C-alpha cells in the first residue's frame, strides 16, 4: 500500500524515533527502539503484552520521558522537552487515543470534543462547535452530542475519544489498542472510523492486536518483544513470511 506515500509526494519522516531507551526502576522497558514514520503513513506496532508498546507511544507524545535516544515529531525534539509548558506545543501536533477511552465523565460528548480547542488552542467557540458537530458526525455519532460518557457504549465512547483527538487537528495520531476493550460488534465501528482516517492520509501509529486490520491498513509493521524491534516489514511480507522465529511464534499464537 505505498500509493499513499506517492500521493503525498514525499518521504520525509514526521516521526523519527532513534535508539530509545527507557527503564522503570530496574525494569528495562525499551532497549533501543528506532523507526521512522513518513507523512501520511500508517504504521502498526504489534507484540506480546508487556513488550513496551504503550510506553513507546507515551514517549512519542511526551507522557513518558525517555532515558536515552532521540524522538522527533514534526518540528519538536521530544527528548529535549522537560517542562510541562514545553510539552504543550508538542501535544498540539500529536494526539493519542487510549485503550480505556479516558473521556472526561463530567462533560458531554460535545464538550469533550470542544474543550481542548477552546481552552488550550483558544479558538473561537462558534468555530470549534461547528467543527465538533462535524467530527461527531464523521465518527457516526450524530445525535449523541449531549450524551455523557456514562450513557454511551464502549464503542461510542471510543469514537468520541477519536473525535476529541482529531479536534486538535494533529499532524500525527497515536492509537493504543483502541479496540482491545470492546466487543466484536462495536470493534467494527471503531475500526471503520480509523480506516477512513488513514485513507484520508492521517499519519498514524497504531498499537494493535487486530492482525487482520493491521494487514489491511498498515504501510509498515513492527514486531516488538522485550523492548526491542525484532522484525519489521510491509504487512504482506511480515504476516505471510516472517523471517524471525519469534515473530512466527507470536503470529501463530495470536491467529
Amino acid at each position, binding site marked *: 500500500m505505498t500509493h499513499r506515500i506517492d500521493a503525498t509526494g514525499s518521504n520525509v519522516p514526521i516521526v523519527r524515533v532513534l535508539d530509545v531507551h527507557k527503564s522503570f526502576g530496574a525494569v528495562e522497558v525499551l532497549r533501543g527502539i528506532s523507526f521512522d514514520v513518513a507523512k501520511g503513513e500508517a504504521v502498526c506496532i504489534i507484540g506480546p503484552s508487556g513488550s513496551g508498546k504503550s510506553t513507546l507511544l*507515551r514517549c512519542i*507524545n511526551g*507522557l513518558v520521558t525517555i532515558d536515552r535516544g532521540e524522538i522527533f515529531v514534526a518540528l519538536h525534539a521530544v527528548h529535549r522537552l522537560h517542562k*510541562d*509548558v514545553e*510539552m*504543550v*506545543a508538542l*501535544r*498540539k501536533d500529536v*494526539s*493519542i487515543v*487510549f485503550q*480505556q477511552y*479516558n*473521556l*472526561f*465523565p*463530567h462533560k458531554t460528548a460535545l464538550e469533550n470534543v470542544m*474543550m*481542548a480547542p477552546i*481552552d*488550550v*488552542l483558544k479558538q473561537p467557540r462558534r468555530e470549534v462547535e461547528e467543527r465538533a458537530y462535524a467530527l461527531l458526525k464523521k465518527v457516526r455519532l450524530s445525535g449523541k452530542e449531549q450524551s455523557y460518557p456514562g450513557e454511551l457504549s464502549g464503542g461510542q465512547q471510543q469514537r468520541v475519544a477519536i473525535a*476529541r*483527538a482529531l479536534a*486538535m487537528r494533529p499532524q500525527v495520531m497515536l492509537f493504543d489498542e483502541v479496540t482491545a476493550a470492546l466487543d466484536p460488534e462495536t470493534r467494527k465501528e471503531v475500526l471503520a472510523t480509523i480506516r477512513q482516517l488513514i485513507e484520508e492520509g492521517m499519519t498514524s501509529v497504531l498499537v494493535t492486536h487486530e492482525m487482520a486490520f493491521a494487514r489491511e491498513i498498515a504501510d509498515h509493521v513492527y514486531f516488538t518483544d522485550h523492548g526491542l524491534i525484532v522484525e519489521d516489514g510491509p504487512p504482506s511480507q511480515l504476516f505471510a513470511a516472517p523471517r524471525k522465529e519469534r515473530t512466527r511464534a507470536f503470529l501463530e499464537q495470536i491467529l
Partner: protein
Amino acid sequence: MRATPPSPAALICQMRRGGLSQRERRQNQPLSLGKRGRGEGAALFSTRTGVALAIVFVASIAVAQIRTQPASASVLELLVKWTPLLATGFLFNLLISFFAMVVGTASGLLLAFARISPRRSLRGTSWIVVQFFRNAPWLVLLFFVMYLLPFQFRLGSVTIPFPDWIKATLGLALPIMANVAEIVRGAVQSIPTAQWDAARSLAFSRRQTLWKIILPQCVKRMLPPWMNWYAILTMATTLASIVGVSEVMTITLRITNAEGRTDLLIPIYSYVLLWFFLYCYPISRWTRRLEARYGQR
C-alpha cells in the same frame, strides 16, 4: 440536678474523637471520605439527638415553672424576653462560622495544591502544616491566634483595627484549612491517573487540568465531608466566648448573671443548644442525602 453550662471544649473533644477513629481508616483509603462524614454526622446530629434535646428543654422548663416563686417572672417569659438578644449573638456565631469556612476553604485549597505539588519540598512542608493544624486542639489554636496577632494593623498612616471576632474567625479557620486540604487531596488523588494522561495529551497545562478536569470531578466527593466540617465548625464557634467574643455563649452567661436565677440555667442553655441543633440538623441531613446519592458510584 446541678446546673452546669455545657462546656464547648467538651463538645469539641467529643467531635475530635469522632474524627480520630475515622482518620485512621482513611489513611489507606482516600475513597472513604464520604463514609467518614456519615459516621460523624450520624453521631452528632441524629434525629434521636434532636428529640432528646427537645425533651430536656421542655422538661427543664416544666420543672423550673413548678419551682418558680409566684411573685417572679416565669422562666418561659424570661426566655421570650431574652430571645432577641440571644438571636443577635447566635447570628454572630453564624457570621464567624461563615467567614471561617470561606477563609479555611480557600486556604485549604491552596494547601492541598501544595500537598500534591510535583515539588518535593513543597509537599513535605505542606504535610507538616496539615498535620499540625489537624491535630492541634482548636482552643489552643484560638488562643495562639488571639495573642499572636496585634489588635490593630498599621498600613502606612492608616490604622486598621483588628477586632477579636476577626481573630477568632482566623483561629477557627486554621483547623478547617487543614481538614479541607485533606479532603481535597484525598479527592484529587482518587481520580484515576488516566484522566491526567488524557488531559495532558490534549495539551492542557497542569493548572488547567486541575481546575477544569480534575476538581470538577471531585466536587461530589468533597461536598459531604466539607459540609460536615461546616457543621462542626458552627458548634465550635462557641469557643470564641472563651476568648471574649460576644457570641451567643457569652451573651447567655451575661443574661444568667444579670437575672441571677439558678432555675434559668438549664432551660436557657438547652434553648441555645436547640438552636445549634436546628441549624446543623438540616445540613447534616442534606449531607447524608448527598452521600447516599453519590456513595454508590
